[in-house]
């Protein structure tokens, strides 16, 4: 972790439009591949990145193309670190219902955060939900086919 704090991270700023997510993919994913992360890890990182970007652009920034999303990232031999910041009003990630409960299975929304948690080694929210940090360790055993709790 100290390495990330000391070293300035790479940055991509994108407008809140679906088509802009590609800019973040194009910046980050080739570095992940070049660093030798497995196909499953690349799938996991891309999935979590997409979910976090969609949350930031459409829930955080409300799809307002004048509001930006800042993506900061660092890829090294041990881990991939991604921090995504939006300009919205924030939210409380602890009150998102478990989408895997029987009563929620037919609801079309609410799976993004659980997918991020299932596929990444660590997911944390700061700045009242406006900032999410995703970490994927190279030796990460996830995904696991169960809902990760807040304690994970």
């Amino acid at each position: 972790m100290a390495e990330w704090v000391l070293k300035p991270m790479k940055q991509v700023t994108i407008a809140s439009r679906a088509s802009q997510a590609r800019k973040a993919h194009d910046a980050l994913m080739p570095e992940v591949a070049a660093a030798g992360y497995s196909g499953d890890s690349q799938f996991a990182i891309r999935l979590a990145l997409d979910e976090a970007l969609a949350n930031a652009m459409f829930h955080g920034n409300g799809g307002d193309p004048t509001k930006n999303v800042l993506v900061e990232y660092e890829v090294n031999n041990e881990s991939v670190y991604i921090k995504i910041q939006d300009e919205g009003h924030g939210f409380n990630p602890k009150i998102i219902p478990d989408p895997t409960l029987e009563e929620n299975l037919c609801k079309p929304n609410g799976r993004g955060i659980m997918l991020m948690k299932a596929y990444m080694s660590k997911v944390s929210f700061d700045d009242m939900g406006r900032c999410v940090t995703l970490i994927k360790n190279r030796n990460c055993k996830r995904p696991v086919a169960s809902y990760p709790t807040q304690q994970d």
Partner: protein
Amino acid sequence: MTDTESRLTIIEDGPISSVRFLDQNILEENSIQKIGAEILQLIDQAINPKLLMDFQNVEHLSSAALGTLITINNRIKEKGGQLRLVNINPQIYEVFAITKLDKLFKIYEDSDKACASFS
């Protein structure tokens, strides 16, 4: 790709409509909405829709795409129809398993088994 261009191949075979995705990645909000609208229109035109969705080309999908699949499943149920999903690769299948949507959807290895399962 233009806004009016379909991102699906649709084949009508008797009572069964087969839908195949042209895109490897079903991620972007706009294209997901467009795919959803096209399939919902197909369902609304049928009396007891029998829909087979083929994921052979699909390598990535988002939770928004899962949401659209759920909306499609809900609409088919309202119309007394049946939905089958086929040719889902192991990585995508894992997304269904983690979200427990493998319990909600009827998923088959291939089209023959899925077609045979329609009543």
